[in-house]
């Protein structure tokens, strides 16, 4: 056999060895590439109605009433609402009674008696009945929770 013939055989052998090493290096030989396990059967199905988010006319906000509960002994009821406010125009938050407001997400520029400026998730403050509270979302969307005691 000529030297060039030997070289050709060596080259072919090297390629075969290299490709074999390549195949061994990949995980595909040790497991199915995309195994399909059985569907999970351990997830409970929870049927709970998600409160509707009603558009608030003339604003860029929606509101959901999450909870309302009468407290006869106080002649009052407690209500939990959430406001979802899109970026843009200022939104005057309806405050008819003593209310705790909490920023749940996003960024609000707040104008209230006790609080002014940009507020992030976790900010909680109290407002008085009929106090003027205006929020403007400076992120794309921000969420405000209002817990109110409403006297009958």
């Amino acid at each position, binding site marked *: 056999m000529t030297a060039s013939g*030997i070289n050709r055989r*060596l*080259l072919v*052998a*090297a*390629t075969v*060895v*290299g*490709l074999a*090493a*390549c195949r061994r*290096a*990949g*995980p*595909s030989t040790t*497991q*199915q*590439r*995309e*195994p*399909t*396990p059985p*569907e*999970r*059967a351990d*997830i*409970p*199905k*929870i049927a*709970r109605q*998600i409160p*509707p*988010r009603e*558009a608030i006319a003339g604003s*860029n906000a*929606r509101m959901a009433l999450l909870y309302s509960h009468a407290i006869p002994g106080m002649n009052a009821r407690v209500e939990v609402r*959430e406001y*979802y406010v*899109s*970026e*843009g125009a200022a939104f005057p938050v309806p405050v008819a009674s003593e209310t705790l407001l909490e920023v*749940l*997400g*996003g960024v609000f520029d707040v104008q209230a008696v006790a609080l002014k400026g940009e507020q992030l*998730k*976790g900010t909680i403050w109290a407002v008085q009945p009929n106090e003027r509270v205006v929020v403007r979302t400076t*992120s*794309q*969307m*921000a*969420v405000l929770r209002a817990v109110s005691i409403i006297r009958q």
Partner: protein
Amino acid sequence: MRRPLALLCLLVVASLAAGACASNDWNAYGYDSKHFSKQPSESALTPSAVQASLHVNFDFVIPSGTAGGGSVHSFTASPSVYNNVAYVGGLNGIFYAIFGTGSSKGTVKWQYPPATAAAADGCGITTQPLVIATGSGNPSGPGISSSAAIVSGVPGHTRAVIFGAPDPTSNGGDGRVWALDADTGQCIWKSAVIAPTSGTAKIGYSSPAIAHGRAYIGVSAKHPDNPITIGHLFAVNLADGSLDPAFSFTATNGPGGGGIWSSPAITPSGNVVVTSGNSCHNSIPSCASEPSVNLSLSMMKLDYTNGNVLWQLQPVPFALDADPDWAAPPSVGQVSCGSLAMSVQKDGYVYAADIKTGGPFSNPACSSAGHSLECPRWSFPHVASLPFTGGTHTDTRWLRMPAVDGDRLYVYAGGPALDESVPGHPASTSIRRMYSLDVCAADANRIRWILDVPGFAPGAPSTANGVIYIGSDDGHLYAYGDTSILPPASSVCSYPGLPADLSCSGAGFQPVGVPVQLKAVTISGSVPGVPAISNGQVYIATTAGHLIGLTP
């Protein structure tokens, strides 16, 4: 003597051939279309070398003035690296190829459009930057924020650079996919328009995923959520830039929703996994009810031939959409317990879904009326039931792509504090809190370690040899050692921020490690993207317009 020499040659060639299985280039966003952001072929960047001497090797800066193209001299895209040349486009509308080594390191190999040109090239460009005239879309404009893929398979060109960008010669910046010759910067083709300026979409951060001779890329809102756009994914033929008419993905039949802010990934058998943005709920006042086709807020596996949905994971239902876009791209591939698609949604929850063979798949346990949805393999934190029926799911800015090394996932996430609380103590979450998760462990053992990366909103991680690289917005590139290679620096409760008067285990949590910081190198600007790792060098692109190479 000829036989031993020949045998030696055989071994050397075989070794080289085996080494070629894993590229030491960094050919795409996240290394390749799996998005693991791991360099598997790295020898110089050892933990000890990084700790001893990682430093700035070169620092290219976008020139000031008109030489720097458009007015925003900044990088939000991530660099790709081929043959020691870094490729990245800037918000100034200029795409750069920068030498990473040798006497010319840190200098321009070529730029596109060129600084000077006698006439328009085959793509109709002379020297005008690739910017959109109006509607830049977050920090994803006005120029290029799509990270490039370096590909073979474009006829007549050894390698081509593929990315999305506005076309300044077309209606003030219609969005197209571009192919440039990697060696010369010559424009090979530009695709048909996939994001016309007359519409509401643009090519934002979406970077092309390459498979089957096609580039898969998505479009997102031109003005984020104002109005929201309809998400589309396209398949562009690499040979000539034509759109594959057989592939079609439209996220909704409603007025808007499902924008593709992320970059699609390719599964081991070649299908496409992608994440999608908000629905029209809250974003379009007229959108009162859920459209019958709603592929928003989802991670999905798509048939690569036609775009059909093979499974859809949609944890946050339409009614609870308060802006938790799924903006982080998925990481997709094989781990020791199967093949998973993993990503974090903007509300901070991490999901891992079995990729599975074939489809379509759905599971009634995770579906709701009118939907055929899949369950995840796991979520972090553990969610007992999906889709959610409560909670606040909003834009909390968890949007960085994770990195994956073996069964180790590195991901910024909300963690246990998203749905657990210690009575009397508010939950503690942070968008700079990185978790290392064991993707194949039981839920109770999911967390490997926790790291609060310095800065406010650090960039996406990448890894090689157990070292994790993170560019932050506090002016540093950080390197940390995974706890599999170096003992942790300290420990922290798996519920960070637990008050001192409560014991971690007593409150139902467990102590976990904090990885050791190997190096903090001062840089100019912040790094929202992924550090690329190639041939002993870490490449980062910063918002201050720097492309920096770091070596030991």
